C-alpha cells in the first residue's frame, strides 16, 4: 500500500498552548496520532519543585482534564496519543489518565504506555563518581561545581521507547523527557516498520517533528511574511503531518480552519532555534537541513522531500536545572510630555536609592518600553513626542533580601519622583526564583539500560 499515509497532528506546542487545539485536531478531520509537546528546557525544574511539595504532582496537570475532554473521541476514532506531559512524574500522569478513562466508562478501552528512565536526579552522584563529569556543554565546567544546587536532571530520550509502547498496544503514551521530535518519529516508525538505522528516514521524521513541534507556529502563527493576509487566526488550524512510506511527507491542517500552511510558514518554523543546519542532532540520528525540499502542493499543503541524515551520536544530551538566585522586574509608565526624559530620571533616582541602601545585585537592567526594549541601540533616536514610555527595571542577586527590598522601592517613585506617572495598579512585583539550565552529555548506554516501558490498564497488567 504505497499510497498509505499516517497522519500525525500537533495538539500542543508548549505547556500553556491553546487549549482548544487538541480538541479541534481530534474532531476536525481524520488523524491517526495526536502528539502533544509540553516540555521546555526549564519546565522539568518547575515540575520537580511541585513534586517535592506533593509526591503526586510533577507532571503537566493540564493534560489530564484535556484527556478527559478528548478521550471519548480519541477512543471512538481510534486515535493514539503521544505526549511528554509526564514531566518528572510520568507514572503519576499515566495513572491520572487511567483514572479519567475509568470515570468516563472507557477503562476497558484505554491502555496507557508509560516510559521511564530519563530521570537521573537520583543517579547523579553515582554517575559523577564513576567518571561522568556532566560538564556544561557551553562552558565546559564540571557539574560538581553546582551539584548541591541541582533541582532536576533528565536525559533526552528518543523515539525508541515510544515505538515499543505503541507496539505493545498503548493508546496513550506518557513519557518524561522525550525529545519533541521523538513524539512524531515514534508513530511514523511504528506504522511503517522502518529500521531505526535507516538514517535518511530518521532525518525525515525528525524534520517532520521539528515542523509541528511548536504547534501553529508552522501554520500561520507568528508568521512574519505577509502577516496581514493570514486569515482566521481566531481559530487557527494546528499543523498535521501526512507521512508516506517513502519518507516524504505533506504538512497541512484541517479544512475550514484559520491560518495558512505555505512554503513561507514552514520555512520560518524550520529555521526556528536552528544551530548548524547540516547537523540537527537528536537521540535518534542527525538530520541535514540543507537537503530539505519544500513545494506548495495545493492550498495549505506543503510537500517535504529529499531529506538526508547520518547516524546517531554515541552520546545523549542531559538537561540539568539548578538553583541560581532571585530576580524581580518592575514597571512604571510615564506620560507625555517628555515621557522618555521622565522615565530616565526615575531610573537614575531609583538606582541612587538602591546604592544608598547598600544593596548588592549581580545585575540591574533598565529598558524603556516604547523606546529601546526589544532592539536596543538599533531602535534609533527616541521620539521626543512619545505619548508614553514604560520604565522597566529588573534586578538579579544570589540572595533574596536585596531583590525583596528592590520590589518595595518602585511604588514610592510615584509620589517621590518625576511627574505624570501611572500604571502601578498591579502592586509590588513578585520575587522569582531563578532556575538556570545546564546542558550536558552522557554515554548513551548509561541511560538506555535504565529505560523502561510499561503498558498499564485495559487488562495489560499494572
Amino acid at each position, binding site marked *: 500500500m504505497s499510497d498509505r499515509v499516517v497522519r500525525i497532528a500537533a495538539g500542543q506546542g508548549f505547556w500553556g498552548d491553546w487549549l482548544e487545539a487538541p480538541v479541534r485536531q481530534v474532531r476536525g478531520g481524520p488523524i491517526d496520532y495526536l502528539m502533544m509537546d509540553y516540555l521546555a528546557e526549564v519546565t522539568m525544574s518547575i515540575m520537580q519543585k511541585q513534586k517535592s511539595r506533593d509526591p503526586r504532582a510533577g507532571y503537566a496537570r493540564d493534560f489530564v482534564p484535556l484527556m478527559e475532554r478528548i478521550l471519548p473521541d480519541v477512543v471512538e476514532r481510534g486515535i493514539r496519543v503521544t505526549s511528554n506531559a509526564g514531566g518528572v512524574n510520568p507514572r503519576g500522569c499515566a495513572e491520572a489518565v487511567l483514572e479519567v478513562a475509568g470515570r468516563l466508562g472507557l477503562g476497558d478501552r484505554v491502555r496507557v504506555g508509560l516510559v521511564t528512565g530519563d530521570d537521573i536526579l537520583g543517579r547523579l552522584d553515582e554517575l559523577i563518581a564513576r567518571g561522568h563529569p556532566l560538564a556544561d556543554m557551553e562552558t565546559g565546567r564540571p557539574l560538581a561545581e553546582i551539584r548541591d544546587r541541582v533541582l532536576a536532571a533528565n536525559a533526552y530520550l528518543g523515539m525508541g521507547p515510544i515505538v515499543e509502547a505503541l507496539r505493545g498496544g498503548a493508546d496513550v503514551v506518557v513519557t518524561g523527557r522525550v525529545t519533541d521530535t521523538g513524539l512524531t518519529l515514534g508513530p511514523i516508525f511504528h506504522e511503517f516498520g522502518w529500521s531505526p538505522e535507516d538514517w535518511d528516514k530518521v532525518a525525515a521524521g525528525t524534520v517532520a517533528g521539528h515542523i509541528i513541534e511548536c504547534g501553529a507556529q508552522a501554520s500561520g502563527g507568528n508568521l*512574519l511574511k505577509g502577516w496581514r493576509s493570514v486569515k482566521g487566526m481566531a481559530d487557527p488550524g494546528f499543523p498535521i503531518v501526512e507521512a508516506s512510506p517513502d519518507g516524504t511527507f505533506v504538512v497541512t491542517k484541517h479544512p475550514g480552519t484559520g491560518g495558512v500552511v505555505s512554503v*513561507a510558514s514552514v520555512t520560518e518554523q524550520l529555521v526556528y*532555534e536552528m544551530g548548524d543546519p547540516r547537523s540537527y542532532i537528536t537521540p535518534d540520528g542527525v538530520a541535514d537541513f540543507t537537503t530539505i525540499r519544500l513545494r506548495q502542493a495545493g492550498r495549505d499543503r506543503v510537500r517535504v522531500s529529499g531529506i538526508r541524515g547520518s547516524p546517531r551520536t554515541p552520546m545523549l544530551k542531559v538537561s540539568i536545572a539548578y538553583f541560581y538566585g532571585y530576580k524581580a522586574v518592575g514597571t512604571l509608565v510615564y506620560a507625555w510630555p517628555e515621557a522618555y526624559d521622565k522615565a530616565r530620571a526615575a531610573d537614575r533616582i531609583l538606582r541612587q536609592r538602591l546604592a544608598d541602601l547598600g544593596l548588592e545585585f549581580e545585575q540591574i537592567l533598565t529598558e524603556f518600553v516604547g523606546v529601546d526594549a526589544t532592539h536596543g541601540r*538599533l531602535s534609533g533616536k527616541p521620539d521626543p513626542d512619545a505619548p508614553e514610555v514604560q520604565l522597566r527595571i529588573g534586578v538579579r542577586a544570589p540572595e533574596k533580601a536585596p531583590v525583596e527590598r528592590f520590589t518595595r522601592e518602585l511604588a514610592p517613585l510615584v509620589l517621590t519622583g518625576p511627574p505624570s506617572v501611572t500604571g502601578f495598579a498591579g502592586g509590588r512585583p513578585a520575587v522569582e526564583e*531563578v532556575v*538556570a*539550565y545546564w546542558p550536558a552529555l552522557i554515554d548513551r548506554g548509561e541511560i538506555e539500560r535504565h529505560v523502561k516501558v510499561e503498558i498499564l490498564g485495559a487488562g495489560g497488567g499494572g
Partner: protein
Amino acid sequence: MATRRTSKGGRRPSAGRAKGRGRSAAGRARMVQLRWLAHARSGDKGNTANVGLIALEPELYPVLVREVTAARVARHFRGMVSGVERFELPNLGALNFLLHDALDGGGTISLKTDAQGKVYSTALLRLEIPVPPALARRVLPR
C-alpha cells in the same frame, strides 16, 4: 556609508546611494533595508540567539548571500553580541545566523524583555545592504 535618508521603522522606506559599491552600467547601488528583501524568525539556545533570514523571493537569495555577511551582521549588532556565525541553506533560500552572548545570560537568567531572542529577527531586518537600483525600485513600496 554614504548619504542615507533615515527612516525609523516608519512608512518611508530607507534607501540611499551606496558609496563606491556596485557601480556598473546599471548605476550605483542603493541601500535597502532587509525588511524589503527578506523575512525572518529567531529563537534561542542558551545564551545564543539564532536568526533565520529567508529571501522574500528566490531571486533575492544570492543578494543576501553576497551582502549579508557574518562580518556585516556582527557590525550591525556590535555591543549587543560577542560573535556571529553564518550558515547557508540555499535549498530554503535562507541564511542562519548564530548571535553569541546575545541574551544577557539567556533563558531564565536574563532580565531582558526579549530573554529568548524572539525579536532579534526583526532587529536584523533593520540592516541596510547595497542592491542594484533596478532591484531597489522593484522591492521598495511606492
